[in-house]
């Protein structure tokens, strides 16, 4: 049982770390618009594939 005397403080540190990361995420507005983030990944992937197409005549 004595192992818990060492492990629980480690767990506390991890939780503190988790809270710090969470606060940072909130502060950098990552919870502002939850609806679209899932979609963002999809869209960007597709775009890269399309840019590789030779018939893409965009100038930029």
């Amino acid at each position, binding site marked *: 049982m004595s192992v*818990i005397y060492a492990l629980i403080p480690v767990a*506390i540190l991890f*939780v503190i770390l988790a809270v710090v990361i969470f606060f940072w995420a*909130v502060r950098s507005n990552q919870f*502002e618009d*939850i609806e679209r983030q899932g979609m963002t990944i999809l*869209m960007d992937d597709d775009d890269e594939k399309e840019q590789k197409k030779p018939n*893409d005549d965009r100038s930029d």
Partner: protein
Amino acid sequence: MASDVEDGVCFHCLQPIPHGVELSVAFQGDDKAVCCAGCQAVAETIIEHGLTAYYKHRDLDKPQQTPLLPEQLKELDVYDNPDVQSDFVRNTGDHSKQTTLTVNNITCGACAWLIERELAKTPGMIKSVVNVSNQRLHIEWDGSIIKLSDIIARLARIGYQALPFQQNQIEANINARRKGFIKRLGVAGLATMQVMMIAFALYFGVVSDLDPTTQQYLWVVSLVFATPVILYSGQPFYKSALKSIQAGSVNMDVPVSIALIGAYIASLYAVIIGRGEVYFESISMFTFFLLTGRFLELLAKEKALKFSTNRLTYMPNLAHREYDGGLEDIAAKQLKINDIIVIKPGETIPADGVLLSDKASVDESLLTGESRPVTKATGDGIVAGSVNQSATLRIKVTATAQQTVLAGIVAMQDAALADKPKVQKAIDHIAQYFVMTLLAIAAVTFLVWSWFDPDHALWVTLAVLVATCPCALSLAAPTSITGAVHRLNRMNVLVKGAQLLESVKHLDTVVFDKTGTLTYGQFKLIAREDYADIDTINAIVSGLEQRSEHPIAAALSQLSDQPTSPDAIQNYPGQGILAEIAGTDYRLGRCEFIQIWHPNWQPKRQSNVILANRQAVLAEFQVDDEVREDSHDVISALKLQGIRTIMLTGDSDARAQTLASQLDIDEVLSEQSPADKVDTIKSLQQQKHTVWMIGDGINDSPVLAQADLSMTFAHASDMAQTAADVVLLNDQLTRVLDVIETARKTRIIMRENFIWAAGYNLTILPIAALGLVAPWAAALGMSLSSLVVVANSLRLYRL
């Protein structure tokens, strides 16, 4: 989300394709049919710019965007005027400027991607961020390279209508509160998990044996985790409790705060003296549950608030003022009385005035709800907000800005809103008695126990406090309300006011506006009778009507895809058109206009547009505002529920009666001004009726504000949307029935919640007071009763 669009609907906007339209766009080798030139242009721009991924990933279940009409694009220059910009643009550097626009047709993540991509390719754009939940676009641009109107026009070309809006102070406040809530929830959630884990070790320690040192150690660890929860996460409850005590009343947060702080202090004392009971897991869990409930409530409120703010678009009106023989464009708010202004066809009249031109036809539907244009002669009054349907007009200004009839309606709305019957929060009533009883019982328990068994007095009292913590009780109302709001949101109904649940209880009267509510508010061909070759008639009629600005004309101008062009045409305002085609004279217009040639002819139907040449009458058309498909069903369903239906309209009596008998409405009040409508509702309310009002025009906004609960549609005027408590986003009248059903269901669930929570508290109270409830059982029972309440409310999410 799929890219398969059904046959017969537009590839871009998913609206049905009108008969005879054969437009298409090339998309990945296929020709896709579209409904109009607007959609075609938008789709072509999107494809041309390499943004086809939009069509692959957009959410087809949601209503799609409708393209901006080209006329609106011309007026965007106004937004480049520095005086106008000073109201909503921030200058952040030498040339860089920032603003937030509302884009009301963003529906899913694909729209956001499309807009950001399009703007990223625009020279002069520094940054653009779309927020889908708010339907907002934040942009930063270089004013020396690109103008704001160009940015808005670019968005219009891909089908989005972006406009500046009036920022709302309450909104910034809610934003900050939401962030605070997310942080508090995060802390409470993470800490609760840890404390629960340790609590399980302690629970088993009760059964088997746990040595005192380990138990003491686990208590200290729980204390470490529970402290930030009580000190940080619980703050909103303490603040609200303090506020209500300062205001001399007691709300539900008072017993919650007492239980939380009391249990924490007693547990802390137990840790210090090394014996007794600890309640850290209950404290953490209660806080987490309660915070979740409050957070969901806040989100629902925020959504409704953002929706109304997005409607308050900033629309600077320009006026063309006569000035030394020429014309100058000035902002409407700078107009002065006796200025002479010119209004071009189709423009909105910026100020009240007197007509100087010979004759005019204006659409006053914005103010009266009546969609037929009104004919005016020299010297007649013209009202701001009406639309010029005839040739260019000259007007002498008689009232500006704050004095116009339109401003008067706004003032009337504000007054009605202040007058609206107030809803008493039933829950805070319960709280008052509850707290008093609770404190009395806890005090009695403590006194009695200290008399007989002083050692246990503190712990038994604490068990009473924890067992009776009104956690479930205080979750009963908010969880069911948020459940109802989410359920309605999923049905595309937006709820803004809290009146819904209270007002459905005694609901006995539903009042409808006519134009735009029971009808579609647009002229359509309802019936026709042909006396000659139908294709020839169609070609002639659409050829003539395409040259008319009359609103009825729009309904007939699309009859044929190959309209015949007239050789000569003469317009008789209010009568009809006289035209010459290939040597034959034709008359197209109202019955009296045709009877000049055919004095004895009578129409077979209730026709209001007739085509004739000198020899014979060729065709008659009945064009009218079409009744909504679901109006009749809604009225009869309401009657079945024993609800009285009333129609209020500014329209003439004859037309109102026809519609009323067709729909079988109980009562009709016609020729009502906005003030009459408010008075009608007020007198109904004085007779102790609970009145719901459904309307859509600017003229309806005061009456919407006065009703116990008001509903409007997403296409309604901005003012009606601001005044209404409920907005039906998908334009179906049957949703009214769903709203009533949901509100009733929610009341039932809320009552079940109250009965369960109060019942549990009353049952456990005597047992706890006798000292028979172990602390872990008290905590577990409390948590379970809260979970039952939450689960019961979750039933509302199921459709």
